[in-house]
C-alpha cells in the first residue's frame, strides 16, 4: 500500500475547483442551517428550556448545535459525490489510474474535509454577524479540532454507504433514515437530559452527540461532559470510520 501525495493533492484540487464553481450550492446549503437557527432561535428565545447551563440563552446554546448539523450534512455529502462520479462515469477514470485505493480515499477525505470546514466556518461567521460571541480564541482552536473530527467521522460513514450503493437515488433515503436521527439525537437542538431515558441511551452511541457537546464546550464554555472526554470519543469514532470507510471503498467494485 503506497500513499501517493500527488494523487491526493490532485483529487483535493478537483474537489476545490468543483466546490468553488458551484456557488449556488454553497449558498443553498447554508440556507437550511440559517433558517433553523433564525426560526428556532427566535421561536424559543423567550421560552425557559431547562438544562441549558448557567447564564446561557437558547440562541447561544443553539449555535454549536446548528454548526454540528452543517458539518454533519456537508461531510455526508462527500458520499454523494462518490455516487455522482459513479453515475457520470468519472469514477472509472479515477479507478483505472495507477494509484492505490487508499490514496484515492485520502484524497476524497482531504477534499471533503476542506469543503466541510469552509461550510462550517461560513456558517459560524454568519452567526457572528447575527450576534453570537465566541468564548475565547484559544478554545476556538479546540473547536476547529472538533470540526475536523466531525468531518472525518461522517465522510467515513458517507464513503461506507456510497461504496455499497450503485446510484444516488438511495442516498436520499440514507439522509432521512440516518442523518436526521443522528442530528436530532445529538442534542443539537435541546439538552439531552430532557429526553426519556431510553432515547438518551441511543444518543450516547451517536458520534455527533460528542461532537456537538465538544463544540459547545469550546465555543460557549458550557458542556455536559468534560471537553477532553468528548474529544477522545469523537476522535475514536473519526479514526474508526475513516479506516472502515477506506476498507469498504477498497473492496468495492469499480464498475
Amino acid at each position, binding site marked *: 500500500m503506497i500513499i501517493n501525495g500527488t494523487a491526493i493533492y*490532485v483529487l483535493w484540487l478537483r474537489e476545490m475547483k468543483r466546490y468553488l464553481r458551484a456557488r449556488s450550492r454553497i449558498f443553498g446549503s447554508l440556507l437550511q442551517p440559517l433558517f433553523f437557527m433564525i426560526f428556532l432561535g427566535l421561536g424559543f428565545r423567550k421560552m425557559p428550556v431547562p438544562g441549558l447551563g448557567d447564564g446561557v440563552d437558547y440562541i447561544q446554546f443553539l449555535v454549536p448545535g446548528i454548526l454540528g448539523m452543517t458539518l454533519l450534512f456537508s461531510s455526508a455529502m462527500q458520499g454523494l459525490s462518490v455516487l455522482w462520479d459513479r453515475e457520470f462515469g468519472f469514477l472509472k*477514470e479515477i479507478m*483505472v489510474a*495507477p494509484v492505490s485505493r487508499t490514496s484515492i480515499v485520502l484524497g476524497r477525505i482531504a477534499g471533503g474535509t476542506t469543503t466541510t470546514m469552509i461550510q462550517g466556518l461560513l456558517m459560524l461567521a454568519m452567526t457572528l454577524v447575527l450576534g453570537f460571541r465566541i468564548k475565547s480564541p484559544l478554545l476556538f482552536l479546540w473547536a476547529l479540532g472538533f470540526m475536523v473530527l466531525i468531518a472525518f467521522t461522517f465522510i467515513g460513514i458517507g464513503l461506507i454507504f456510497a461504496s455499497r450503493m450503485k446510484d444516488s437515488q438511495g442516498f436520499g433515503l440514507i439522509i432521512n433514515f440516518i442523518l436526521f436521527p443522528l442530528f436530532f439525537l445529538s442534542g443539537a437542538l435541546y439538552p439531552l437530559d430532557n429526553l426519556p431515558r431510553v432515547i438518551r441511551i441511543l444518543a450516547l452511541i451517536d458520534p455527533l452527540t460528542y461532537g456537538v457537546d465538544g463544540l459547545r464546550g469550546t465555543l460557549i464554555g458550557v458542556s455536559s461532559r468534560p471537553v477532553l472526554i468528548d474529544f477522545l470519543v469523537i476522535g475514536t469514532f473519526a479514526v474508526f470510520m475513516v479506516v472502515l470507510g477506506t476498507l469498504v471503498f477498497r473492496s468495492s467494485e469499480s*464498475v
Partner: protein
Amino acid sequence: MDPSADAIVVENLTKTFEDVTAVDQLSFRVGQGELFGLLGPNGAGKTTTINMLSTLLRPTSGRAEVGGYDVLKHRDAVRKNIGVVFQETALDGKLTGRENLEFHAMMYGLRKDERKRRIDAVLELVELNDKAGTLVEKYSGGMKRRLEIARGLIQNPKVLFLDEPTLGLDTQTRRHIWDYVRMLNRERKVTIILTTHYMEEADFLCGRVAIMDKGRFVALDAPSRLKDVLGGDIVSLEVKGGEGCLDDSFRALPWIKKYVRRDAEVSLTLDKGERRIAEIVPLAQQCGAVVGSVRLREPSLEDVFLHFTGHTIREQEASTADRFRQMIPHHGRRRP
C-alpha cells in the same frame, strides 16, 4: 517488455455476474502493434472483457496479461501501461478540457514540464487546443470523445483500449475518430483493442477481428479472410409468395453455395453474382414469387456474423434486451 512478446495474453478468461456468464472461457492473444477488434452485439461481453483487461473488474476465473503484467497480480503495473477510453463518457464536466487532462497526467505521476508538453501535444493531435479552456459540459459529443482519446494517450500507453469509441456520434465525427485511431496505430505503433458493434468500423480499422456472441468468440481472423469464409458474392432478393418452390429450386442449383431465407428476404451466396442475376430472377418468377428488389453485394462482416451465429446483430441485441428485462424486473440498468 520483450519486443516480440504479445501485448495481450488471455487464457480461459471468465466472468459471471450472479448466474449470468458474461464472458465464457475466452482465450486469445494480441501482438504488439496490432489493431484488434471485438465485434458483437450489446451484451456479448465486450465491455466486460475490456473491464477485466483494464483491471476494473476481477475475473471469476482464468487469467490475462497486458503488456507482460498479470491483471490480477500486478494491477498497478497494468494500469501504468494502458490507456482506456470507456464506452460512457468519463470526463468531469465541471472542469475544463485542459483541467481534465491535467488531472489525468497528475494521477499518472507526470512531472510538471512533462505534463505541459504532453498535454499540449495530445490537444493538438485531436485539434482541441482552442477549446482547452472551456468547461467540458459545454463540449459536443464528438469533442468529448476526442478529449477522451487524447487523455488516453497522455501517459504514452503501450496498449490503448477503446470501448465503442464512435457510439452515438454522427458519420462525419465517426470518420474523424477513425482517422485518429488509424494514425495512432500506424504512426505511433500503439497496440489498440477496440470494441464495436458497427460492422463497417471493424472492417475499416481492424487488422484482426474477433466476433463475439454470448461471451464467446465465434470467429477470429482478418476481416477479409472472415468474408472469404462465406465464399463469393451475396445476391439478396425481396420476394413475395412462392415459398416452397423457391426453397426447392434454389437449393437444387449447384452454383448456389448457400441459400438463406428470412421472411421476405432470400440471400444467395455464389460466385460471379453480377452474371447470375439474370438467371435468378426468372427462376423466382417461375415459382410464382413477386420480386420486389434485387441487390448484389460483396459479403460484409454482418453476413459473417449471421453465418457464424445464425442471427443478425440486431436480432441478438433485441433478444439480449429481453433476457435482461426478464431477469431484472425492477432494475432498468444493465450491467456494463
